[in-house]
């Protein structure tokens, strides 16, 4: 079950967690209507899309850390 990655990699993978902050706090990037998806303006579906995306990124980081506590 040892999926332990070498140390520098673990540290680097943690930086994935910065992505949701960049993606969501830079508001001008997504404050628009087009492209519309299933009737949702971009502003809405873009932010909703970050929910599964953040969970996925966190899961990738989760796999790289030790689980012994």
């Amino acid at each position, binding site marked *: 079950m040892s999926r332990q990655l070498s140390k520098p990699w673990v540290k680097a993978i943690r930086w994935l967690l910065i992505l949701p902050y960049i993606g969501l706090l830079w508001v001008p990037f997504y404050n628009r209507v087009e492209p519309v998806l299933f009737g949702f303006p971009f502003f809405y579906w873009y932010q*909703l899309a970050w929910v599964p995306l953040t969970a996925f990124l966190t899961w990738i980081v989760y796999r790289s850390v030790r689980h012994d506590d």
Partner: protein
Amino acid sequence: MTTSIDMTALAVFIFFFALVTVLGFVASRWRKPKTLAHIDEWGLGGRSFGTWITWFLVGGDFYTAYTVIAVPALVYTVGAYGFFALPYTIIVYPLVFLVMPLLWKRAKDHGYVTAGDVVHGQYGSRALELTVAVTGVIATMPYIALQLVGMTAALKALGLHGEIPLAIAFIVLAVYTYSAGLRAPALIAFVKDIMIYIVVIAAVALIPSKLGGYANVFASADAAFQAKGSGNLLLGGNQYVAYATLALGSALAAFMYPHTLTGIFASNSGDTIRKNAVLLPAYTLLLGLLALLGYMGHAAGLKLESANDVVPALFQSLFPSWFAGFAFAAIAIGALVPAAVMSIGAANLFTRNFWKAYVNPQVTDEGEAKVAKITSLLVKVGALLVIVLLPTQFALDLQLLGGIWILQTLPALVFGLYTNWFRAPALLAGWFVGFFGGTYLVWDANWKPLHVIGFGENQFTIYTGLLALAANIAVACIINALVPARTAIARA
């Protein structure tokens, strides 16, 4: 919205309310410990909750009944700006993932129950401990009161007016929390969260088809905003910074509250917390969809007395009465879980960081549990009196300040996990500036948590809590650098 009594809806409501009441009392025998007369058992469920219990408990406790009512109401009123709750509840989880397992470990290793315990252990300062504890209690009290606002909206839609139904519900809650401690909301959270999931999924799947699809929902909201001349489907250029700082500041504050920390400390491992940081965003998806109910309110052409009625009114007008009763029960029960955990968190703080620190340092484990149980009762009665006797706006303003206040405990609680550089006097000074400076700015802005700052030509509207936190950290750093350590490290 009609507010006469619908017997079918009321019967469904009473059935589910009775169900969780039974569960609340059964909870004292659930995962039965050797004794409940210990604050670790009563107040933290024996630190034994695994991934699923923690998921339901923290989810049920963080996404409150007030959220279910207030977020759609805000979106109904102002549009896109009210959506900041979504980025807020996304970016909170990477923080939980990175910070909370460390905090959990510190608490577990030393037997800490509250944020005050952690701070006292780190800095050996009774003053800083008391500051963190008092801030936690006063930030939580109005939050409990707001759960009653959420419950009132559901009861009103059922045709139950006045304070008596509210008081009955809350007293029942107080009694089973008294006897079962954190096990009661943990068990009830299963029922509450499953009900809320059913309600929201039904709502977002069925309501748009009755209202001509999502495109029409957004178009009707847009038309309504233009007709009344306020609100918008997108943010105005001057709202960008406010939106982003509200999201970030709220995310930093979220897990400083006693009720969320209680959920963290009650889990059985750091790994449980990390798994939950991956799994809890499911609730955020729910919240984002729920927020859209605000726009559906416009598409359904609801005429509302108060924006807080938008969710109940939608269910009443678009669903059969049995399902409306189910939805109202979900919202009302949704108020019980956070109210219970909040009162437990506040009671733990009082017991550990005031009673044990100042009144009776020799208190036994059994005595601690007893004090915490009685305090949890008093806290709930206090919240009930606030709602019954004072205008609701008072609780709303206080809750808003509470978010700014609790954020000022972050440096004391979190920095010590990473560095031993900071000392108590500096952190106290930082807290003082952040707490009172932030409060002043909010008061000065007529109880708005936003402050305008200018850099030359450019003006930004920024969340006051974040501004106060920046001042807090800056003051703490400066004082710590200037004032020499009198004694070499007070920590034992």
